[in-house]
């Protein structure tokens, strides 16, 4: 092998060993059906955080900038980072207005370090609030 080629190959190997590879997240196109929920209250389980019982609190948290997720029927959570062309994912007025709704969305799923991040490309269906949990649990938290 010519000397210049050997030097180039050695330099390339050193570069590969020293410089960390740029992280490239894999993206999977999926359709998700589920309820928009408040991520904090649901994950911490400090109260009953689903359906109409938790609607008011879910609105508080969405306005307060806590991430909104979609909870699928199997319990999988998808953190919503984009709604169609709208990239505001903190206190997004459009998301606040459909908090606790049962929705069907298409989107790009990115999994990383124990979290499913979802970039919604289309809200295919919105059934409104169908999980009438207030009949059993009242209003969570603190009653009225």
């Amino acid at each position: 092998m010519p000397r210049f080629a050997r030097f180039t190959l050695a330099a390339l190997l050193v570069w590969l060993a020293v410089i960390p590879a740029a992280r490239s997240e894999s993206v999977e196109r999926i359709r998700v059906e589920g309820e928009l929920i408040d991520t904090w209250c649901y994950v911490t389980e400090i109260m009953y955080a689903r359906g109409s019982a938790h609607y008011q609190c879910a609105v508080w948290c969405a306005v307060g900038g806590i991430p909104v997720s979609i909870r699928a029927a199997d319990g999988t959570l998808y953190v919503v980072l984009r709604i169609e062309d709208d990239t505001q994912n903190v206190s997004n007025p459009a998301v606040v207005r459909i908090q606790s709704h049962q929705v069907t969305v298409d989107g790009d799923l990115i999994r990383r370090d124990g979290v499913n991040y979802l970039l919604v490309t289309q809200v295919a269906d919105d059934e409104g609030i169908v999980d009438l949990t207030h009949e059993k649990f009242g209003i969570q938290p603190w009653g009225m």
Partner: protein
Amino acid sequence: MIRLSVPLLVLLSFLSAGPVAAAQKWGIDGEMTAQFEAKVVDLLCELNGDCPAGCGAGKRQLGLLRDDGRLLIAVKSNTLFAGATLDLLPYCGERVEVDGLIITHPAMVIYMLQKHRRPGDADWVQATSFAKDWKKRNGSPDAKRWFRRDPAVKDVIGEFGKVGRPDLVPPPAE
């Protein structure tokens, strides 16, 4: 060679483990106090390459990129019912030292931010930027019960009711 006593070795190993975590536990299943340094990143930028200036000026969820490459989503601050974006925004793209809770749930792993500071700073800052910003935006001296007074909340609850549907009657107060 210097010989170290066992108690001294124990003391040194304790000190080398870093500062004692001071985060307040909430009694949540899967919680762990966690004080560490990380880089503050805009999640959409980190995951998808969509990178506006200044991490989206408070309109983007932010994360903590740890030195081992793990990414934590910061979901909650020390203001009731409020997220951590405004607390982390001043550190966008830079390093921060945080104190709070990592909560590991079967559905996902999250971080609750309680305090933060620039690495090397002596004083911690309580993660209550949302309350301070809310007071400024709403001209109110008190943000303790901001969620009861917030105009955006009032609009939505006024339209849809406390259980989210005007056709449904909320249960009586407890």
